[in-house]
């Protein structure tokens, strides 16, 4: 079984992506899909007069400041827009998809951070009403139940906290925890970059292979979103996933190319 994560950033043609994904599934590849929706969330937030607010933690990690109102917008987009669009497209291609958020059946559960310490406008602050957290538990039973009965799960943040509050979680890291929990052989992370680039501005500086024992070194030099992806990959590999691939979600046959190892393969 393979967990495929497709990002929500700009420039990804979801219709083409879903066509290729459906072909892979119909040709017998056993896939569970996880997706993001950050770009669309930024667009809707701005339209609703609540532009996204990103904060940087003291350790330099950037994240979306998600108060209750932002969380409602986030959930409308991730679940109501992106998730149901993907399910609709897969159904159109003859794949019996079922869309779930991490809240449903407590599919993705974890602890909500009571507070985060951030730097904003040069000031160090404690933020307490940030609905953000980490996925620590997966309802494997629910995923297995659907897969064993012919359904393709299409999973999206938000997750649910132990106190049953919806929480914003990082999609890449949730996919890594999910892959480990489901005992997936492979985790494929598709985004709007060809893979891990030695030089971020040089698309040809693609790192094509990384041995798992070298991954810490790459985690250090990777920056921003890619850093989280590499951390997620390290976690998945440590928990039994055999191979992690970072590849490009854009263009035709993105999934097939990634399945053939076109991108950064870590094993």
């Amino acid at each position, binding site marked *: 079984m393979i967990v495929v994560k497709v990002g929500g950033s700009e420039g990804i043609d979801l219709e083409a992506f879903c066509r290729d994904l459906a072909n892979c599934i119909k040709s017998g590849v056993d896939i569970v899909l996880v997706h993001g929706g950050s770009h669309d969330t930024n667009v809707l937030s701005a339209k609703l007069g609540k532009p996204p607010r990103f904060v940087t933690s*003291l*350790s330099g990690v950037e994240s979306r400041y998600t108060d209750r109102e932002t969380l409602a917008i986030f959930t409308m987009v991730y679940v109501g827009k992106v998730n149901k669009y993907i399910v609709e497209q897969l159904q159109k291609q003859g794949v019996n998809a079922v869309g779930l958020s991490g809240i449903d059946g407590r599919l993705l559960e974890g602890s909500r951070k009571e*507070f985060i310490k951030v730097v904003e406008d040069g000031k160090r*602050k*404690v933020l307490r009403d940030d609905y953000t957290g980490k996925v620590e538990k997966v309802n494997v039973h629910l995923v297995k139940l659907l897969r064993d009965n012919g359904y393709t799960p299409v999973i999206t943040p938000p997750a649910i906290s132990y106190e049953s509050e919806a929480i914003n979680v990082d999609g890449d890291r949730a996919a890594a925890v999910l892959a480990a929990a489901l005992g997936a052989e492979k985790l494929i992370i598709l985004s709007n970059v060809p893979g891990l680039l030695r030089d971020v501005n040089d698309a040809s500086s693609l790192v094509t292979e990384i041995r798992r024992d070298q991954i810490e070194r790459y985690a250090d030099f990777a920056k921003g979103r890619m850093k989280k992806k590499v951390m997620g990959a390290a976690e998945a590999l440590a928990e039994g996933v055999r191979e992690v691939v970072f590849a490009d979600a854009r263009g035709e046959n993105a999934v097939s190319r990634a399945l053939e190892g076109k991108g950064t393969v870590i094993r």
Partner: protein
Amino acid sequence: MAVCPECEAEIELKEAIKGEIVQCPDCGVELEVVSVNPVELAPAPEEEEDWGE
């Protein structure tokens, strides 16, 4: 003026904002501005290693 809850030193704060982290000039402890008008200070919470979301 606000008072450091650890060493009771007086701390002069200009337009502090709620949630801001300040350091006591005397004992150096990290404090959180838990409320403004009047300013109230409490020890800033310790943070476990954060990966951010």
